[in-house]
C-alpha cells in the first residue's frame, strides 16, 4: 500500500506541466544522442548539465535520467536502418536489424525494437520501484567494512566481465583508484599530489574526466571514419503498423530479454552492453531456426533491444540505494545529483521522496512518450545523420567546453577534458576498457574512507571485514570470484600446454 501511496505522490510531481516538459526534453535529447554515433547517454547528460542548474532537484533528475533511458531507444534506429550502432548497447541489433531492413522489413524491426524497449524499460521500472525501498532499508545496516567489501566486489566483477583482458582491466581499475587519491585526504585534509594548487584540492573534475574519456575520445575516433556513412534504408509509414505475426514471434524473446536485462543491470561495468550479447546468444540457442540468426531473425532484434532497455531500471538501483554507479552513464547522474544537493544512498528515499518517486513516475511516463514519439519521428532522427560529421563534431566540442566551464568556471578543466580525451583515445586504440577506469575514480574516494573508517572503528583489527552477515557475503563472493578466475587461468594454461604438446 505504501508503494501505491508514494507512487501517487510521484505522479503528482512527474505530471506537473514543467516536469512533463523536462521529461520530454530529456527523452528526445536522449534519443538524439542515442542516434548520433559518438554521443552516448554519458556525454548527452554531461552536455545538458548546465541546463539543469536553475531547476529544482526533482526536475533536473527527471530530465537527466530521461536522457539516460532515451539513449537506449535511439541506438536501435541507426542500427537497423544504417548498420551504425548509435550506442554500444545497440551493436548486436545491427546484425539482424540491418538484415531485416535490407529485406524490406525495416518497419517490423523498428516496431519490435520499440515495443520490446517499452516493455523491458517499464518492467525494469516496476523492479526498481519494488526492490529499491526494501534494499535501501537493509543497506542502512551496512557499516563501512561491508561497504568497502561491496565496492571491492563491484571492481572485481568489473575486471572479470570486462571486454578487454583481465590484466588490462585491473590496470585500469588501479589507475582510476590512484587518480582518485589526488586532492585533499578525505579524513585528515592532507593535500595529496596537488603541488600546492587549490584547483586540484577536490581532485580532477569528474565531469571533465568523463567527457574527455568518453565524449572527446569518441569524436577523435570518429574523425578517422569521416565519409564512411552507409546508405539509409527508409521504412514506409505503412510498414510501421505492428503486424500480429511479428509481435507473436517476438513475445517470448521480449519476455526473456526483460529478465536478462533486469538481472544484468545489477552487474557493474558495461552491463547494458553485455545483456544484449547474452540475450542474442540465448535466443539463438533456443530458436528452432538458429540458422536464421544473422540473416534477419526478428528474435535477434527483439531480445537484445528489450534487454538493453531492461537494464535501465536495475542499473539505477545500486546508484540510488547505495550511491554506487554501476555504469559510467549513471556516474554522471551521481555527479548531477550531488550538484543539486541530493546524495544518493540508503537515505535518499527517506530524505528526498519527491526526487525518488518523481523519478520513478517520470520513467513510466517517459517510456510511454518514447513509444509514442519514436516511431513517427524515425525519419527526423535518421536525417540527423545527414549532417556531415565535420560540422557536427566542432559544435559538440563547443557544447563540451560550455558544459565543463559552467560546472566550475575554471578554464583548466577544459585542458583536463582535452588531456583525458587523448588518454581515452590511446587507451581505446589498444583495447584498454575505459569504463572501469572512470568507475574506479568515482568509487576510489569512498572506498578509502570506508576502509579507514572501518579500521578506526575496529582499532586496526582487519577481522572487522569478516564480521556481520553483509561483510561475510561480500567477502565470500570476492574469494569465490578470485578462485574462479585462478581456476579459469589454470585451465587455460593446461589447455595451452596440451596443445603445444601434441
Amino acid at each position, binding site marked *: 500500500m505504501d508503494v501505491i501511496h508514494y507512487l501517487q505522490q510521484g505522479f503528482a510531481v512527474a505530471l506537473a506541466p514543467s516536469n512533463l516538459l523536462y521529461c520530454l526534453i530529456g527523452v528526445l535529447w536522449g534519443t538524439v544522442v542515442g542516434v548520433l554515433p559518438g554521443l552516448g547517454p554519458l556525454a548527452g547528460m554531461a552536455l545538458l548539465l548546465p541546463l539543469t542548474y536553475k531547476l529544482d532537484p526533482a526536475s533536473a533528475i527527471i530530465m537527466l535520467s530521461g536522457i539516460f533511458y532515451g539513449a537506449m531507444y535511439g541506438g536501435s534506429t541507426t542500427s537497423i536502418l544504417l548498420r551504425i550502432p548509435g550506442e554500444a548497447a545497440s551493436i548486436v541489433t545491427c546484425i539482424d536489424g540491418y538484415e531485416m531492413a535490407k529485406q524490406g522489413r525495416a518497419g517490423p524491426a523498428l516496431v519490435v525494437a520499440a515495443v520490446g524497449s517499452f516493455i523491458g524499460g517499464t518492467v525494469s521500472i516496476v523492479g526498481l520501484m519494488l526492490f529499491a525501498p526494501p534494499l535501501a532499508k537493509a543497506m542502512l545496516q551496512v557499516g563501512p567494512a561491508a561497504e568497502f567489501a561491496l565496492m571491492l566486489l563491484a571492481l572485481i566483477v568489473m575486471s572479470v566481465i570486462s571486454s578487454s583482458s583481465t590484466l588490462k582491466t585491473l*590496470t585500469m581499475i588501479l589507475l582510476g583508484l590512484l587518480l582518485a587519491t589526488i586532492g585533499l585526504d578525505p579524513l585528515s585534509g592532507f593535500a595529496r599530489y596537488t603541488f600546492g594548487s587549490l584547483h586540484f584540492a577536490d581532485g580532477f573534475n569528474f565531469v571533465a574526466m568523463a567527457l574527455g574519456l568518453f565524449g572527446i575520445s569518441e569524436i*577523435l575516433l570518429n574523425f578517422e571514419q569521416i565519409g564512411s556513412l552507409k546508405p539509409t534504408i527508409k521504412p514506409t509509414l505503412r510498414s510501421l503498423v505492428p503486424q500480429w505475426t511479428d509481435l507473436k514471434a517476438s513475445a517470448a524473446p521480449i519476455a526473456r530479454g526483460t529478465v536478462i536485462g533486469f538481472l544484468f543491470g545489477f552487474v557493474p561495468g558495461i552491463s547494458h552492453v553485455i545483456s544484449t550479447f547474452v540475450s542474442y546468444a540465448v535466443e539463438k540457442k533456443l530458436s528452432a531456426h538458429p540458422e536464421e540468426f544473422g540473416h534477419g531473425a526478428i528474435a535477434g532484434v527483439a531480445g537484445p533491444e528489450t534487454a538493453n532497455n531492461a537494464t535501465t531500471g536495475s542499473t539505477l538501483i545500486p546508484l540510488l540505494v547505495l550511491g554506487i554507479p554501476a555504469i559510467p552513464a549513471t556516474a554522471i547522474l551521481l555527479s548531477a545529483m550531488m550538484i543539486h544537493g541530493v546524495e544518493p544512498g540508503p537515505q535518499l528515499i527517506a530524505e528526498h521522496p519527491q526526487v525518488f518517486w518523481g523519478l520513478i513516475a517520470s520513467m513510466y511516463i517517459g517510456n510511454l512518450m518514447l513509444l509514442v514519439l519514436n516511431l513517427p519521428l524515425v525519419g527526423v532522427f535518421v536525417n540527423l545523420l545527414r549532417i556531415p560529421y565535420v560540422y557536427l563534431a566542432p559544435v559538440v566540442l*563547443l557544447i563540451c567546453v560550455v558544459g565543463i566551464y559552467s560546472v566550475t568556471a575554471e*578554464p583548466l578543466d577544459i585542458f583536463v577534458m582535452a588531456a583525458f580525451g587523448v588518454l581515452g583515445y590511446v587507451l581505446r586504440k589498444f583495447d584498454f576498457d575505459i569504463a572501469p577506469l572512470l568507475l574506479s575514480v568515482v568509487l576510489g574516494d569512498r572506498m578509502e574512507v570506508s576502509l579507514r573508517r572501518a579500521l578506526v572503528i575496529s582499532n586496526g583489527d582487519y577481522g572487522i571485514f569478516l564480521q556481520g552477515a553483509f561483510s561475510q557475503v561480500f567477502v565470500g563472493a570476492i574469494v569465490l570470484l578470485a578462485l574462479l578466475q585462478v581456476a579459469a587461468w589454470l585451465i587455460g594454461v593446461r589447455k595451452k600446454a596440451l596443445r603445444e604438446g601434441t
Partner: protein
Amino acid sequence: MQVNSRRGDLAVAVVLLALAVFFLWGGWHMPAGTFSVPGPGIVPMILSTLLAATALALIIKELFGGARRAGVPVSFGVAPVAIVFAALTGVAVALEYAGFVATLSVFLFIMLRVFSRLGTWRAALLGVVITLAAAWFFDRLLGVSLPRGLW
C-alpha cells in the same frame, strides 16, 4: 600512422609504470601511519605498488609471454588528435582573456577549416554565427555565465 598493437600495449604499460613510480614517490613523502591506522600516504603507496606490478606484468607479457604473437597494426590519427588537443588547450588558455565569443569563434574556424572543405571566409562566418547562437542560447536563455574577456 600505423602502430603495432604489441608495441602500443608496451608503450602504454611503460607510461603507466612511470606514473606508478611517480605516485609511489609522492606517497613516500606523505604521513603513512600504520597498517592498523592508515595515514593519507598508505593507500596511494599500496595502489601505486599494485599499479607498478600490473604494468610490469603487461610489459613482461608483451616482451616475453607473447613473443610469438605478431600483434596487429593499429591506425593512429595523429594529426586530428594533435589539432583537437592543441585547439582545446588554446581555448583553455584564451577563454578568460579573450572571452567566449572571440575564443570559440576562432576555435570553430580552425575546426571547420581543417576538417571540412569550407573555404576561409565561409568557415570564419560559420564559426562566428554558431558561437553567437551558442552564446545567446547558453548565456541569455539558460543563464549560464560565460566569460566576456578583458574588454
